[in-house]
Every structure is written in C-alpha cells, then in structure tokens.
C-alpha cells in the first residue's frame, strides 16, 4: 500500500499542477469561424465589397488534413493573365486561427506574368484559410478552404529540417524549366534556409520562449522592375519556400532580396541570358549577406 500511496501523491500533484497552469484561453477561441472571419475581414478591408472567387479567377489549394502542421503545402492558383490594364495587384493569405492570421501579403505587377503563389505554412488549429485577391480595378475576390491541422506554430522543426537550418541564409533560386521562355510566364523556385521561429515554441526545460526570428519581407525584381514583393510572417514554415512566376521580355537579372527580423538581408540572383539559359550569379547558390549585424558586431 506504500506504493499505492506514492501513486496517489504523484497523481494528486499532477492535478494541482494542472490547476496552477490554468491558462486563460485566447478570446478568439470563443468565436465561431464565421464571427472570427467577420472580425478579420473588417479589420483588413473595412466594409469593402468582396465576392466569392470563381475558380477561373483564384483557387486555393490546401490539404483537407495536414500531415505535418508545421509544414502545410498551400498553393494559390490564378486563372487570369497579368495584363497591364487588368491584373491581380495583391493577394492576402490569411490563416484565420493562427496567432497572427495574416501569413502573407503578396504584391504582383503585370511583369509577374501570373499571380500564382505556392508556399508552405504553419497551422496552429483547425481553421479556415482565406486567399483574397485585389484586382487592378480595386475589386476583391475571396477563396476559402478549411484545413484540419494543429500545433504548427508551437511545434519545433523536425530533426531532419534542423540539419538544413544550420546554414542560415543559404538560398536556392532556380527556374522550374531548364531555360526561360521570353514573353511567357516562367515559374521560379526560391528557397531560404531560415528557422522562421514563431516565438510561440517554448523550451520546456527552461520555460523560456524561443524568441521570434523570421523572414518578414521578400522583394524580387527582374532588370530592376518589381515582380513580387511579399510581407510575410512566422506563419510561413521554416526554410521559407516560394514558387512564383515572372515574364521576361529580354535577357536580364532576376534578383531576390530577403529581409529578416534581425535586420539581416540575404540576396540571390538568376541571370537570364539571351538564349534563355539561367545561371546563378551568387555562384553555387551561396547567398551574399550584405547587411549582417552579427558580423558587424565582431
């Protein structure tokens, strides 16, 4: 019975600790999906009219149930071409129940060719995801998907991914096709090795939160003209990964500049030759760090 008593002691302590850890739930937990979306929508767009997007304008592709809540593949497919007089100006990607719901705001131009975007996100709770497109005429279209996933913002990197994290700022930047086709949208892949820490994962031994440290801005230009400018946050998975398009009309340089919350900047460049062949200017994909406060401090 002595052992039984010890179990009681242990188990009762468990109960008491649970009582002590009585955490007030976030106010948004209480809202219905519809009420939460109404609030987010009002904050971002006030009373502007918004139409449900037909598939031929914008479609959101996401798994119904995520395999890995810290790495959920998402794609926004756009059905309209980027023409100078009629194009998608901005796409908001909103994960309603994430701690900071606006995962990304992507700005496009006619030179983008297509306003498709493919990335990977963290999802913290079963949630609606909204993609809102603003066209050049100011009209708004919204696409919605419900995704079952949870814990993505506080889940740590898989140990496999942690290996990749050891090269902060390393980038890969390449065309998805062997060479570029002029006057057509060409898809490119941009990868940045970065922890993109949410600030919400807690070290359970020290009880200190791992501080937020993430990529907050990406600017891509071709021959100096904007292709894609994105304001993003930690809802984007570690090692941020984007696929998007650009339309080259002649040889030039596709430049990517990535900025993080410690003021570091990482760059990579793809030089497109007159025959459409592409070469990475930063040889071997090694990113040049132009502005590294850690290095400056040494």
């Amino acid at each position, binding site marked *: 019975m002595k*052992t*039984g008593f*010890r*179990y*009681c002691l*242990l*188990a*009762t*302590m*468990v*109960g*008491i*600790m*649970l*009582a*002590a*850890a*009585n*955490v007030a*739930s*976030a106010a948004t*937990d209480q809202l219905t999906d519809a009420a939460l979306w109404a609030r987010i929508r009002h904050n971002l767009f006030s009373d502007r009219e918004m139409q449900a997007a037909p598939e031929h304008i914008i479609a959101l*592709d996401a*798994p119904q149930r995520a*395999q*890995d809540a810290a*790495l959920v*593949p998402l*794609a926004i497919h756009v059905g309209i071409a980027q023409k100078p007089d009629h194009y998608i100006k901005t796409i908001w990607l909103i994960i309603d129940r994430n701690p900071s719901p606006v995962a990304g705001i992507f700005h496009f131009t006619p030179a983008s060719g297509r306003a498709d975007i*493919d990335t*990977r996100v963290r999802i913290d709770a079963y949630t609606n995801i909204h993609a809102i497109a603003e066209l050049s005429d100011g009209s708004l279209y919204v696409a919605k998907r419900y995704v079952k996933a*949870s*814990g993505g913002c*506080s*889940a*740590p990197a*898989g*140990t*496999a*991914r*942690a*290996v*990749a994290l050891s*090269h902060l700022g*390393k980038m*890969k930047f390449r065309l*998805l*096709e062997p060479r570029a086709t002029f006057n057509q949208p060409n*898809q490119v*892949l941009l*990868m940045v*090795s970065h922890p993109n820490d949410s600030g919400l*994962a*807690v*070290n*359970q*031994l020290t009880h200190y939160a791992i501080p937020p440290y993430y990529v907050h801005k990406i600017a891509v230009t071709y021959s100096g003209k904007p292709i894609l400018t994105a304001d993003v946050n930690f809802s984007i998975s570690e*090692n941020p*990964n984007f*696929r998007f398009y650009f339309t080259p009309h002649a040889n030039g340089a596709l430049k990517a500049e990535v900025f993080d919350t410690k003021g570091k900047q990482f760059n990579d460049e793809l030089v497109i030759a007159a025959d459409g062949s592409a070469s990475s200017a930063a040889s071997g994909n090694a990113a040049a760090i132009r502005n590294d406060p850690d290095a400056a401090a040494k």
Partner: protein
Amino acid sequence: MKNVMTAGSVCHVATRGLAAAAIWGSMWLCAYAAAAAPLTVTQVAPGIFVHVGAIALASPANRGDIANIGFIVGSRCVAVIDTGGSFAVGAALRATVRKHTKLPVCYVINTHMHPDHVFGNAAFVPDHPQFVAAANEPRALAARSAYYLRTLRREIGAAAAGTAVVPPTLTVDGKRSIDLGNRTLLLRAWPPAHTDNDLTVYDGKTATLWLSDLLFIRHIPVIDGNLSGWLAVIAELQKLHPRHVVPGHGPLDVPWRDALAREAAYLTAIRDQTRRAIRNGVTLRQAAHEVGQDQRRKWALFDDFNARNVITAYSELEWE
C-alpha cells in the same frame, strides 16, 4: 518533480473545470494504479522480457500501448526499456516487472523521445531509477513535449490521466555500459536516423540487440530524423551478429536480417523517388500524394505515415 509536465498543463483551453477533473482523475488513478493489470510479455532470451504493442495509432482502447517495451533482469536490479505511450501503460509494465522479479528497477532506458516509448516513465518515478537516454534526447523531447501531451490527450482522452514528461537523469553520448549485476548492457547512441536520439541496448550475455525503432516490422517505418542517416545506420547494423533482435514495432518472430532489408528497401524507395520528384520540379504536396505508393501493400498504417514520411524526406533532400 520540477521538470515533470502533465498532460493538462499545456492545454490552451484549460479551465478550472478541467483542473478539477484532473484532481478527480487523480483520485480515480489511485484506484487504477493499485489494479494496473500486467501486460503480456515474451521472454526472448533468459532474463529479457518484451511486450509487443499493437500495430495501431494511439486510441482510448489501447491507451497508447502501441510500441514494443519491456525489461532486462540482472542479479542486482532491473533495466526497463521504454515505458509505453501513457502513465497507464507504464503502470501496467511496472506491475509486470513486479510479477517477474522482486529486484528493484535501477534504470529506465528510453530508446528515443517518441511519446509511445517515453510516456509511461512517470509510473517508475517511485522506484527512483536513473532515467537514461541519448545525449540529444532531452532537447528533442523538451521541444516537443507540450505538443505530444496535447496530442495524447486528443488521441486517448481520459486514459492520458497521470501522463507526464520525465526527462533523463543520465545521458549517453556515443557508447556507455551499465551493470545490472552479473549482466552488462552496452548502450549506443547513433547519428540521426529514425530520430536524432536513437539509442540501442545490447545484452552481451544473450547477444540480444534491442534496436527499438531503428527496426520496424509490418508497421511502416516512420522518418523523424534523417533519411540518408538512417540508411547509413542500417548498413552498420547489417554488419553486426546478434542472436536476438527486438524491433520497436511489430512481431518478435520474424528473421531480423530480412526485416531490416525490407525496411531499407522502403527507405531507399522513398529517398530515390523523392529525389526524382525534387529534380523534376514536383511540388511537396504532389510528392506527398505520389511518392512511395508502390510500397503501400507492404506495410500496415501506410496511409497514416507515408505522406508524412515523404514530406520529411522532401524537406531534407531538397537542400542536397
């Protein structure tokens, strides 16, 4: 007790009601612990007892009893190897040890940080053993414990009561031997493979190698460490000559070399197909649907883990 975290302490929606329920639950647990039914074990070699867990996801019915766990008895004391997926399973394992020997439990060895192997640890706290794990294990477990506890509560409900994270008190970097009296166990921590903190246990007396989750039989292998690293570790294991091998999941009566070869074949297929997908510009989402589908009929729980394995493999291999 300072580092013991409970299944409820991280729950975002914790309310006073829930805390009260936990105290109620703890009282129920007092009764339960006294009556924990022993587990079925097989003596694979003299003094080496293994309980074969269900090939299943954790559920209220199996209480997280889904991994192979057990114990090794020396002349002085007992080493428990993995403790099951909940306090309840740990308590049942403890009752099983008590049924077989009066010797004290001096070591509780965790072969890696996964919840189905460590969540019964708390049941052995009254024995004051050394809790042993690989050097990388405490960091990996700490980073995931809140998430694991939340998931367990969702998966097995009330059966999660009492489950807590008990971190190691002794860690192994490389190799280390421990003595159970007239029986020496050789512990070996491996480079990242199934996880980044895989630990094997070798009993020289019976030439038994407890591989745990470095070897999956029937249950689809789960990649949570490093795919290429795991294949390299398998190549090392194939050079060894143990008489008995204990897998982390699946039956004990399958010839281990064949089983290890089947595991290597799966991992190789995933690696090669994922590399090809990356080279061809196939997206992560598409790869998760397509890669490894030819392996489906060979494994249990394929649909529960294959896509996730591909996602893990893809996010590793895309940086090659």
